[in-house]
Each structure stands twice: as structure tokens, then as C-alpha cells.
């Protein structure tokens, strides 16, 4: 009972985060806590630093040249806090626990099966039998299994955009991450595929805390539990669920910053 009553601890803490690329300030003093079971959305015009914010969480900004990150990002894994930027934090392991879905579907030019199986085999060292089970479960979770179960060994590039994006989501879910980062995951999809994926996120957020970004106010209204508005790398406003649902309020906020 004691545990139940405590205020839940966040899963992710971003404190005073600033990122610069080649001296250019892209994020400035961003703060954010992400709690279990919630989907927090960062919204902002393109170029406002949304992608950079997500990449700061799994240290993917470092894959690009001349990046300089300051501030603190901490993640709670198995009741232990990890400072993501501490030199002692194992980077590959960290990235396995933080699943990221990109703005454009990015399947590797392998087969459908191999796209999901390869990280399991290589990064988790799973044996072929376990792998097969995991792959099936992940594809079922994104409702892709029935569509691809007869052509698992076709190239992933033969799938439609929406299917590819669900495949990428399955690839991430198969690794059983602790939280999900979604970077405008429906930006390159048509209306139907978008609704399909959004419905998936609704159910996924029960299991994974999700930090998502979008530039689409409609999507924000449909999905977000909390919103943070980014502009030129700064957090300029925040909205709670009731405020998002209040059309007057959210319109005022959107008009002020878009």
C-alpha cells in the first residue's frame, strides 16, 4: 500500500538540456519529465529542434559531426537511475532500451524477417528459435503479421510506406525497450496508414512511456496526454490534457507559436 500511494517516479528526466551543432544553438535549456503510461508530445514548426530533442535521449546526435550536448538526461531502468551522458553508461545497451521510430520508414535492405530478427540475433544474442517467436509476436503487436506471414523473406522494401513504418515499429518493440521515441512517425504516410498507426500508439502507451514529436496539431489532439511546444529550440509553452481538449485554449497556443 505504501508504494501505491507514492507519487509515481518519472521514467525519464531531461534537465537543462542544450544541444549545439557546429556552434549553432539547436536546443536551449529544455526540461521534461516522462512518467510511466503517458504519451508526451513535443510539437513545433519544422526546424524547431524536435528531432534533436529525441536524438538527445538515445545519444544519436553523436552520430552526426560537431555536436555538443549539455545538461542532464536520466533514465530509470529496473529501478536504477542512469545518467545517459555519463562516460560509464554502455551506449549500445542504452540504445537497445530506448526504441526510436524515425520520421521516414527506415527498413534495412534485407528481408522483412531479417529486419526484425537481425538486432535480436546480434544485439541480444538470441538463438534462432527464440528469435522466430519474438519476431512473430512483434509483428502481431503492430498488426502486420497477417499481411506478411507468407512473404517474410521478401525484401522489406517491397512493403508499402505504412507497412514499412509498422515494420520499423515492430523491430523496435521486439527488443522490448523501456521507452519509445517517435519522430513524426506518420509524416510520410497517407490518411489511412496514419490512423492505423495512431491507433497502435494508443494501445502501446499503456505498456511503454512514449515521447513523440509532431508538427500536426490534429495528431497532437488525438494522442497527447501532455504537450510541450518547441520554438527555435526552446520550450515556449506546455499543455495538459484538459487544455489540449479545450479547443479555444489549444487554438490560442497554436496561433501564438505557429
Amino acid at each position, binding site marked *: 500500500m505504501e508504494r501505491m500511494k507514492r507519487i509515481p517516479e518519472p521514467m525519464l528526466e531531461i534537465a537543462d538540456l542544450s544541444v549545439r551543432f557546429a556552434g549553432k544553438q539547436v536546443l536551449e535549456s529544455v526540461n521534461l519529465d516522462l512518467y510511466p503510461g503517458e504519451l508526451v508530445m513535443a510539437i513545433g514548426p519544422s526546424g524547431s529542434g524536435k528531432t534533436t530533442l529525441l536524438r538527445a535521449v*538515445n545519444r*544519436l546526435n553523436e*552520430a552526426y*559531426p560537431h555536436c555538443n550536448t549539455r545538461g542532464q538526461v536520466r533514465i530509470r531502468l529496473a529501478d536504477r537511475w542512469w545518467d545517459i551522458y555519463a562516460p560509464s553508461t554502455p551506449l*549500445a*545497451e*542504452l*540504445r*537497445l532500451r530506448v526504441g*526510436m521510430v*524515425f520520421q521516414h520508414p*527506415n527498413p*534495412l*535492405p*534485407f528481408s522483412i524477417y531479417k529486419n526484425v530478427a*537481425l*538486432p535480436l540475433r*546480434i*544485439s541480444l544474442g538470441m538463438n534462432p528459435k527464440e528469435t522466430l517467436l519474438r519476431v512473430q509476436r512483434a509483428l502481431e503487436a503492430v498488426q502486420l503479421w497477417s499481411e506478411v506471414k507468407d512473404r517474410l523473406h521478401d525484401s522489406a*522494401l517491397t512493403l508499402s510506406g505504412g507497412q514499412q513504418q509498422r515494420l520499423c515499429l515492430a*523491430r*523496435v518493440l521486439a*527488443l522490448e525497450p523501456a521507452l519509445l521515441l517517435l519522430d513524426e512517425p506518420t509524416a510520410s504516410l497517407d490518411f489511412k496508414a496514419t490512423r492505423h498507426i495512431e491507433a497502435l500508439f494508443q494501445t502501446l502507451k499503456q505498456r511503454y512511456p512514449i515521447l513523440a514529436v509532431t508538427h500536426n496539431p490534429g495528431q497532437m489532439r488525438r494522442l497527447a496526454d501532455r504537450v510541450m511546444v518547441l520554438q527555435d529550440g526552446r520550450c515556449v509553452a506546455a499543455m495538459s490534457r484538459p487544455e489540449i481538449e479545450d479547443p479555444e485554449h489549444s487554438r490560442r497556443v497554436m496561433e501564438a507559436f505557429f
Partner: protein
Amino acid sequence: MDGAKLMPHLLRAAALACTAAAGGILLVLIYLVLPLFTSGGWGSVIAWQWLPFQGRFGILPMVVGTLLIALGALAVATPLAVGVACFVQVLAPGRIKGICLALVHYMTSIPTVIYGFVSIFLLVPLIRQWFDRGTGFSLATATIVLSLLILPTIVLVLQATLRELDRSARVTCAALGFSRPAYIRHVLLPLCRRGLLAAVVLGFGRAVGDTLISLMLAGNAPMVPASPLDATRTLTAHIALVVATDSQSTFYHSVFAAGLILFLVMVLIQLILRRLGGTFTP
């Protein structure tokens, strides 16, 4: 006529000249080789002994010599090139990557003859001392130096493929928690097979076509070497030797035959490359 109008004509003339030159070479080659087929000279050329003053004009030892040296050089250079290309593309930090690439480019610009005479003063004595056998002018010597010659070719072609792959897969794989060695081993190398094959075929073409290195370093004995330390002779070196020395015209049969074989090998390589190129873009 102004420049804009002149340009298409100039370009067409240039294209025609190139085609005509290539066609001309082919025609002359056919003209020269034709007697081999009509007068039965072909039989005397497809033989294992080159004793021209006894009327034996066999060039098969040179075919074997060419293949041994070229394949040997490939066997040495390919793994090295894969290592260098992967290192440069994935592992090397920015500055070191630049230095490595500059070095590889520089290697392509060294004239073959420099490789040859530097090796005569450096590698040949070493081989002679280490193995204490023969003169140091041997199959092994030529193979080692030839592998250096084709290394940059293979590295550059392979690295061009790797760069494209790396651009599209690097961030994806980093986000999936792949270590860089695992990324190279399980993603880049399987995906660059075709590019690697193209690079290897190109390197093979250079190795087969090279004349000076085998001429200067392989010892030129017209025989099938029994060990890597034996001397051998390649087709290209054979042609150079026969044409450059005062040989009787009957010797020339073998030169023509050697030329034809080289030509056919090169055509074959071009065809393979074209096939690879045609199916290259996904």
C-alpha cells in the same frame, strides 16, 4: 558557328574517334591473329614450351604465370582493401579518415615503374636473404608488389559503395544498438557484396593488364613456377620481351595469340562489370 552549335559536333567527333580507335584495334588484332587459325599455327602456340629457336612457341606457361600473379595479388589485396575501406568509412575519426583517403589516392598516382625499381632495391634483396633461394626475382615478389598496385583501385571502388550504404544505414543501426564491428560484419559487408565483386573484378583487370611489375620483378623465365620463389613470366611481359628484342617474325605468332587472350580476358571482365552495374541500383 558559335560555341553552342559547335559543341554537339565536337562531342560527336570525339565519340566517333574513340569508337573508331577501339574498333581499329580490334580489327588489326583479328587480322594479325587470323593466320594462326588458318595455317594451324594455333596448335604450336597452345603448348607448354617456349623454345623459339627450336620452333616451339608455347605460351601456356605465360597464361599460368599471368593467372597465378593476378589471382595471388587479388588474394593479398582484397582482404586488405576490405579492411582499409571499412576502417576509413566506419571506424576512423575524421582527420585520420582524411589522411588515409589522401594516401590511397596518392597510391593511385604512383607510376608503375616506380613500384618496380623501388622493389628491385628493397624487396628483391629481402626475399633473396629471407628465403635464401633463387635470385629474389620471383612469382612471390611480383605478386606482393602487384597487390600494392591494385590495392587503391579496390579500396576506392569499394569505399564508394560503402559510403552510400553507410549513409542510409548508419544511424538506423546505431539506434538499434549495433556496435560498430557488428554493424560492419552483419550489415555493411553483406550489403556491399556486389560492390566488392565489382571492385575485385576491376582489380583483377588491372592485375592481368599490368606489364612493368611482372617484367621487372617476376624473373621472366617462361615456365610454370613450382614454388612462389621461382621465376615466371606473364603474357604482358612476354609480349613486351618478344617485341622489344630482335626476334624473328615467326615469334610473333605467340605475341598475337597472347594479345588475343589478354583481349578476351578484358572483354570478359567488361561484360561482368556491365552485368554487375546493370543490376547494381536496387
